[in-house]
């Protein structure tokens, strides 16, 4: 998606997603290099920068192969003296953790901001980790905007902080900061600045972390950390106190917590009664500011999104300085630790601490009695994966193996649900091949089947595959090559050739990569062809059983949404399918075992197709034993080609 508003006229007020405001802030500061691997809720930052770069000719923007490479590239760029940005979702920081820790020892020349987009509530993630711990652990300051309203200012301040201390800075955002739209005022963008290039000046004592250098740098780092803490105590833009200086109560509101605190205090008319400490740069703990504000209070309340990170650090600080106020927060059990902050939850905490009346936000909620069906996300109508799962299941049945499906992270994770239930493990990106390596050797009678997407294959699949070849792990690897990183919104990746700046890149071949790593059995199949899939999967499984070595099949077929978008660009449209009522016997195979969301059952049990939802993939026509599905018109050959070859633009 383009996010055109990132280039709004200077001085204008526009509605912007928090992530787009981050991109705008980075441009206004003069970011010259931006790398990222997509991941919800971080992706739109780089999408917006990619759009800006195409229009303005800068900054340099790339989708990197994974987060580790993205961060390494950004460190490299920052060492040449220019401001660099690396963006990723929270679990991406785990992948990038190795260079992250080192970067604090070396410091940077230009500036380096690392965006960590955390996902409390796990709207699209496998865990709820709070990456402010990384800041503490790695000695990297953390800036945490007070809501989307402060997104643009906060990233500019993060860059300034990094530039001033020649040190990396983590910008921690969360789903509700990144994916909330607010009104933002656009400032000036200096195009010369975002296009500038750097020069690397050698300094091995700083940039080569051999023990003799690292020991010295470690001493300097610990010293610098205290200085940055003092600096953050004085940074009035990010950290400041407001309200009644003499109140017995201090509310410490961190990041988005500030918005919740402020709205509730305003609702109760308490803004002038209590003391409110807003912390948008909480790590390293701005100790002197906190101590000044905490001194003499009776109650101190902490409101933060995620773990009780700042509460925990502050309590240790208070202990050392004999501050013995009553503490209210997540650590004390007054606020729920899991999930997101919400007004009624925060209000309950404040009500408890301040003795407020049962209030407006906590009024009773109405729940209608009717029983509602759940609506989980599903594979789209026409998704190539549905055909692949179907074919693979038939092949497995024919080969009479007891398969273990080591799944991975992508749209195919949805195969965990009925009717397929063909994801027995989903751990992290690349985990499919990784776990299969263990399962292959830990059991005798099973054939692990690793199911991995194309983007994930390049992200973290390669080392696992090298291991499988080296250690002769008998497994079938199915690479789902849908020509994109679909789940996060259709970004390109190394297997596509298209780059974030819109200029051509080199298209890597999954087949050549697998062969290059030494996989002897490598085949490509048409993902939309169920008979071919069944045959090839069966033969590959037989090979694994016999040879006790890995086999790899690339199932190639474009994400149908990508094909539809590519079709719209050139005026090619699919032809919907319909059910021939005379042929349909109401067997239910298509809506029970195959389950395309465009196919429904009528009262008589016969199938019918919602033409508005049908994407004309033709998969149903292949599975119906009675030949009841037919296209309503002739299917254009260009559409059939796009289904196989479409690419992100």
């Amino acid at each position, binding site marked *: 998606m383009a996010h055109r508003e990132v280039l709004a006229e200077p001085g204008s007020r526009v*509605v912007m997603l928090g992530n787009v405001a981050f991109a705008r802030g980075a441009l206004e500061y003069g970011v010259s290099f931006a790398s990222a691997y997509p991941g*919800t809720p971080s992706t739109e930052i780089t999408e917006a920068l990619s759009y800006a770069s195409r229009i303005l000719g800068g900054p340099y923007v790339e989708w990197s192969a994974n987060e580790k490479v993205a961060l390494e590239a950004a460190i490299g760029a920052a060492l040449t003296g220019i401001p660099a940005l690396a963006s990723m979702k929270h679990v991406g920081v785990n992948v990038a953790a190795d260079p992250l820790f080192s970067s604090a020892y070396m410091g940077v020349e230009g500036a380096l901001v690392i965006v960590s987009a955390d996902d409390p509530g796990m709207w699209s993630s496998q865990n709820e980790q709070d990456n402010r711990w990384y800041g503490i652990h790695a000695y990297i300051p953390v800036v945490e905007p007070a809501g989307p309203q402060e997104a643009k200012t906060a990233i500019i301040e993060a860059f300034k902080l990094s530039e001033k201390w020649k040190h990396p800075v983590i910008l921690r955002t969360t789903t509700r900061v990144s*994916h909330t739209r607010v009104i933002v005022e656009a400032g000036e963008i200096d195009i010369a600045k975002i296009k500038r290039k750097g020069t690397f000046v050698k300094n091995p004592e700083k940039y080569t972390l051999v023990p003799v250098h690292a020991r010295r740098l470690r001493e300097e780092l610990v010293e610098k950390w205290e200085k940055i803490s003092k600096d953050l105590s004085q940074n009035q833009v990010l950290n400041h106190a407001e309200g009644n200086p003499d109140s017995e109560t201090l509310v410490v509101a961190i990041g988005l917590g500030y918005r919740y605190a402020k709205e509730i205090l305003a609702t109760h008319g308490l803004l002038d009664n209590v003391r409110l400490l807003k912390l948008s740069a909480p790590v390293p703990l701005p100790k002197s500011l906190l101590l000044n504000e905490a001194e003499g209070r009776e109650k101190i309340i902490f409101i933060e999104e995620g773990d009780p990170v700042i509460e925990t650090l502050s309590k240790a600080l208070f202990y050392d300085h004999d501050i013995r106020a009553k503490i209210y927060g997540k650590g004390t059990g007054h606020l729920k630790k899991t999930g997101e902050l*919400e007004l009624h939850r925060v*209000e309950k905490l404040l009500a408890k601490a301040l003795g407020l009346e049962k209030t407006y936000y906590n009024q009773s909620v*109405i729940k209608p009695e009717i029983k509602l*069906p759940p609506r989980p996300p599903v594979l789209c109508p026409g998704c190539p994966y549905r055909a692949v799962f179907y074919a693979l299941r038939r092949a497995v049945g024919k080969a009479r193996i007891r398969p273990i499906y080591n799944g991975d992270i992508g749209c195919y994770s949805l195969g965990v649900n009925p009717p397929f239930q063909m994801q027995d493990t989903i751990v992290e990106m690349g985990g499919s091949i990784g776990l299969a390596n263990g399962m292959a050797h830990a059991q005798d009678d099973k054939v692990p089947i690793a199911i991995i997407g194309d983007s994930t294959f390049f992200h973290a699949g390669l080392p696992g595959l090298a291991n499988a070849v080296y250690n002769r792990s008998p497994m079938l690897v199915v690479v789902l090559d849908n020509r994109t990183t679909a789940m996060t919104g259709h970004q390109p990746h190394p297997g596509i050739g298209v780059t974030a700046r819109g200029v051509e890149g080199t298209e890597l071949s999954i087949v050549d990569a697998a062969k290059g790593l030494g996989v002897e059995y490598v085949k490509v199949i048409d993902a939309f062809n169920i008979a071919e899939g069944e045959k090839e999967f069966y033969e590959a499984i037989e090979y694994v059983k016999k040879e006790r070595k890995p086999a790899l099949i690339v199932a190639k077929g474009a994400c149908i949404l990508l094909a539809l978008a590519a079709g719209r660009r050139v005026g090619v449209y699919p032809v919907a399918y319909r059910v021939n009522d005379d042929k349909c016997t109401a067997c239910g195979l298509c809506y029970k075992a195959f389950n395309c969301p465009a196919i429904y059952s009528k009262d008589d049990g016969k199938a019918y197709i919602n033409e508005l939802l049908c994407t004309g993939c033709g998969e149903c026509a292949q599975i119906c034993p009675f030949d009841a599905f037919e296209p309503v018109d002739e299917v254009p050959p260009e559409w059939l080609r796009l289904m196989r070859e479409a690419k992100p633009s």
Partner: protein
Amino acid sequence: MKSLNIVLSGVGGQGIISLANVIANAVLESGGNVIVAETHGLSQRGGSVIVHVRIGDVEAPLIPPGNGDLMLSLDPIEAARYSVYLKKGSMIFVDNNITPPPLPGIKIPSLDEIVESLEKEGFDIIVVPAVDEAKKAGNPLGANIFLLGASYQTSILKEYIKEEAIIDAIRKNLKKPEKNIEVFKRGKKWAEERLTS
């Protein structure tokens, strides 16, 4: 402190997020403050979608349960699911078409059953033929804007958003703006006729 909390709901792909964006831009044009919290990522693959739109003296992104003033929904099941976010007696403008979740062997309640259950809780339900009317107008994807038109006249939206601001926001933020403006007007007309008959 004056504020309006609108809950938008539906199924991924129905245009709920672009509806929220039009409302937000219309609020901006009308000189107000607005916060829109969206659902992205996984839930967009045909999953259930809720968007929180908060207008006026507000700071935080999410509407707490029991505090929404108004709901616009493109699916009756989703309207019922997210009605917990509404205050007693709130208006719910909902399309009459149910998109059944594509799960093998589940029971789908009927529109009547849903409406009855919501009315029993004291909600004011207005069933709007948004999808059908948008199709008739040759703009099947304009159901979201028809719904906005249908709700504009009768609800508290008017107090916060000027009609010209909506037209302007459609023009600046949607593809095929003229077709969508037409659909907005048809929605308004539909509501006027319904009210007077």
